């Protein structure tokens, strides 16, 4: 039995979701790097981003932190706080330089998009 063909509206909704994901993907790395100018552990980082209107689930955040650390843009260490071991993340010197360059790119891109939109 062949699968039922999606209606045009469903296709558009699916495309919208896909494009939203694509749009967010690149922004998240920049937001995370910027939020880690000051040292934070995962849960507070997530809360800080959510408070600024950027919800990010843990299944996306922690693998992203790990990738950025593997690329040498973040440094982390486990420390005790409030009797619980927590992993604190901060920008590395390379991360600072990358954040600066990405911020400039973002502003240029944002200005160009504003003109277009």
């Amino acid at each position, binding site marked *: 039995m062949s699968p039922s063909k999606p209606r045009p509206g469903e296709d558009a909704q699916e495309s919208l979701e896909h494009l939203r994901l694509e749009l967010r993907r690149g922004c998240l790395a920049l937001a995370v790097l910027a939020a880690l100018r000051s040292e934070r552990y*995962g849960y507070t980082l997530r809360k800080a981003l959510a408070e600024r209107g950027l919800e990010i689930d843990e299944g996306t955040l*922690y693998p992203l932190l*790990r990738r950025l650390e593997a690329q040498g843009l973040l440094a982390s260490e486990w420390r005790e706080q409030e009797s619980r071991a927590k*992993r604190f993340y901060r920008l590395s010197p390379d991360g600072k330089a990358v954040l600066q360059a990405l911020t400039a790119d973002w502003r240029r891109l944002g200005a160009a998009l504003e003109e277009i939109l």
Partner: protein
Amino acid sequence: MELVERYLLAVRTWLPEKLQEDVTRELREDLEAELAERATAAARPLRAEEIEEVLRRRGHPLEVAGAYLPHRHLIGPALYPAYRLAVGGLVLGVLVPVWLLVVGPLSVLTGASPGDALVDGLWGLARAAVYAVGLVTLLFAGLERWEVKLPLPGGFGPSALSALRAVGPEPASRATSAVGLVVTVVLTAIFLDVVWSGSVELRDVQVELAPGWLLVRWLVLSVALGGVAGPALEVAFPNARRLHHAVEVLSLLTTAVLAGALARAAAAARLATVTGPALGGDELEWLQAGVDRWMRHGLVAVALVCAALAAWEAWRWWRAERGARAGSRTAPTG
């Protein structure tokens, strides 16, 4: 908290060993922080169903673990077009034509029962296709795993790209021509091997070609080389469309004439003799009749198909010439 530990254990199961400790430790810390915050907000310990809801929202353990793994492809987008071409070329360009033109007819003619032989042959073709696709897939998966780059000669030069066809929007692809060339060479080699050795052996049956074949084998070789020349020219000189059309038409016409002459000879005398010590007289007679029929009717069919293809190729040539003339009249001069 037993539910949390069970969840973490399930995530851990799907992780590689070197990540297990670190990832579950961090996930536990995050989960405990969220649950503690919710309990503080509710001013009471969380109920089991509330903890379950938090875990459900975080996703299936397999999904959670998968997010930590590198995004790998068995065959990535850089190699996939070449993989598709290799699989398609091998199965549709080599296996199926060889089966249709050589293995299939010989199996039917030399098998005890044509129906069984056909089923056996189809099953053999399916197995060969699975093995071929499996081998090509393994080869490309290996290239992907060891990050081997395809050797693209001398970088990318736009002027070296294949020319557009004179008529129609489809560009002439050098890769497609290369597959065509390989297929033609393989089929020609098989055919020439049969003519040169003078016999074909299949199971307990041997088909001996009549000595007359030896007299025409150089003619057969010339025609076969003409058949290879068309695709070879297309690969080597994709822009020489006129020469390519001319060689194709000439080659197809010569093949049609040769096949027609052989068909006439087959009507007058036996062109192949079937032998098989293990077979009975009736079976041999039946097989011989089949081979004789194939020689007479098959060669006529080959002659007709080649003549039709020559006409089709000549028409394409004429259409291309007309398109090129029309294009040159309308081309901008600035």
